[in-house]
């Protein structure tokens, strides 16, 4: 059985790059922190450049490259602290405990909660990225928020 997809509309790599890079970087930064997230994004986009004929027709390019970024930086991650122990000076209004608490979350929870609440991704978008159902994303987010609240000692009803 061969169900080849039909011809796909053409998109230049430059247009693709401008469209995909910010979202891919947000996703990989959520997973690996700012430094390794950027490195993984660069690696994944380089891979896409190299394999453009293969990437171009993909329906879920960000999700695929998300995995490429993980694979391409696996070795680098073994040696490095991904999330700095203290927030950078550029984050004066971020609770210093947040980054450590984020780093302590399971990867899936960290990615889900950061993308949903930090970058306003929909549950559906995160589900597509991670290859899981939207309901599972919601579960991850709920659990992550509960863990972060406990870590930062924020009452559940302390909303503005």
């Amino acid at each position: 059985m061969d169900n080849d997809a039909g011809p796909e509309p053409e998109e230049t790599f430059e247009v693709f790059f401008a469209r995909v890079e910010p979202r891919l970087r947000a996703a990989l930064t959520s997973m690996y922190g700012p430094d390794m997230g950027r490195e993984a994004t660069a690696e994944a986009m380089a891979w896409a450049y190299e394999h453009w004929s293969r990437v171009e027709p993909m329906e879920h390019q960000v999700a695929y490259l998300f995995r490429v970024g993980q694979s391409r930086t696996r070795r680098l991650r073994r040696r490095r602290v991904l999330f700095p122990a203290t927030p950078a000076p550029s984050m004066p209004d971020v609770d210093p405990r947040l980054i450590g608490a984020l780093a302590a979350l399971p990867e899936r929870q960290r990615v889900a909660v950061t993308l949903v609440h930090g970058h306003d991704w929909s549950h559906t978008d995160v589900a597509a990225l991670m290859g899981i159902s939207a309901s599972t994303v919601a579960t991850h987010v709920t659990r992550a928020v509960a863990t972060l609240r406990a870590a930062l000692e924020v009452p559940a009803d302390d909303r503005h």
Partner: protein
Amino acid sequence: MTDIEDQLRRYAAATSRAQRPVELGEVVSRQGHRPRRLLVGAVALVVALVAVGGAVVFRRDRDEPRRVVVAPVPSSTPVLTPRACAAASLHVTSTGGERLHAGWLPPGYTRTEGNQNDLAALANITYSGPATGYAWRVSLIRYRSGAPLAQFVMGEPTQHITVQGHAGIMTGPARPGEDFTFVAWRPAPGIALVTAGWNLHQADLVKVAQNVSYDPGEKFTYPVRPVVKVTRAEALRKLGRSVAGTRAALTSYGELTKIIGGRLPKGSQAVIPGVPVTRAIWVAWTPSSRRSDPSVENATVVDAESGQTIEGLPPLPGGVLGNLTDRSGSVCAPPFGVLTRTEVSYLHHYPTGPTSSLKLSTQGTLDANPVFANFAQCVNFACDPTVPVWLSVQAAAGDRYAPDRGPVYVPSGRPVGGPTGNTRSGSWTMTAVDARTGPQDTGLDGSTSGYGRPPADIVAVRDLAPSP
């Protein structure tokens, strides 16, 4: 104190502000120009066109084959005497013609990723459902591993089932909408097949698995000394002209397509029905002498055994074919179909100099050394130890390296920014790529780095193809 959601929003915004976006130029320069995957499509076409018995062509247009004009070129005899060196006796094996496809799919599912007719190393065929969304799909995956099947699946509970007469396992929820469902079985020793369903009923996934068709293909050994009956002079005659500067190189189909893969004009594609990557060929070309069009090379390809002429190559930028290693005569080179030092340097833009090294090694060597553990990132679990690998090591003694700040390299004399207590002097970077061409190329492209001088284990790796 604000709520967590607000904190996350501020954190994400601050991170985005502080983080430098990846630039397009950075991506391009990081990769150089490595047209690796164009080859996969080309070789897939090979398999497809073999079935219809097509001619061996690089199809540029439908013109008649050019008339052969015997030019007054010097006569010579076939010479293929690889210089005695470790590379020339390297035992390299691969599998070709491996196929995997679904014999039954739920209604409306169509293939969206993967090549069913030549799996290559990344053996993952994905079929997506009619509904929009990534979560409706089923994948077929082949692993080369004798590890327990449980390693290839996720979730609970595990049930034992029989798939096509083989013992298998199934995990995952009974109803769709709850993550993954997996079926795994072993059709042959050392091979594991997995069907993974997202939002698919277990019964449907089992039916997919029961109807999967898998052809393991055939293992082949790369030839060091393929049959070469055609002389250089005969190959040059096929060009049909006598022009000063005409050149010819004895190489392999895999190397040629790798070198030219990313340089083909848009819409052109190398079409070589039935030619394996190891096939010895002569490439003869005449660099253009026209000042107005210096980028065009006229070239022809001749089967080195049969003498069959292949139509002219599409126009190529000047200098591309000059990166092929001429394997005639006495050279220390790996088997045909495996990239040589010259070729891999061109494709990957490896620098040369006293602080850089490029060595031919093997996957087995990397696996046996603790410095290289997991370096290969083998996508198919069990990397063949015979896989030839080009290993590049670059050192920068003048750099400072901040281990606690991720992959940050700071030139001497410039501020590191942030804590500098852990900054070390010097840095090194090591990369390794699969030296094979065609679908056998695993896409291995691992890299690692560190501070100070390169570890002794890296420096001590033996070069199987030392420079003369």
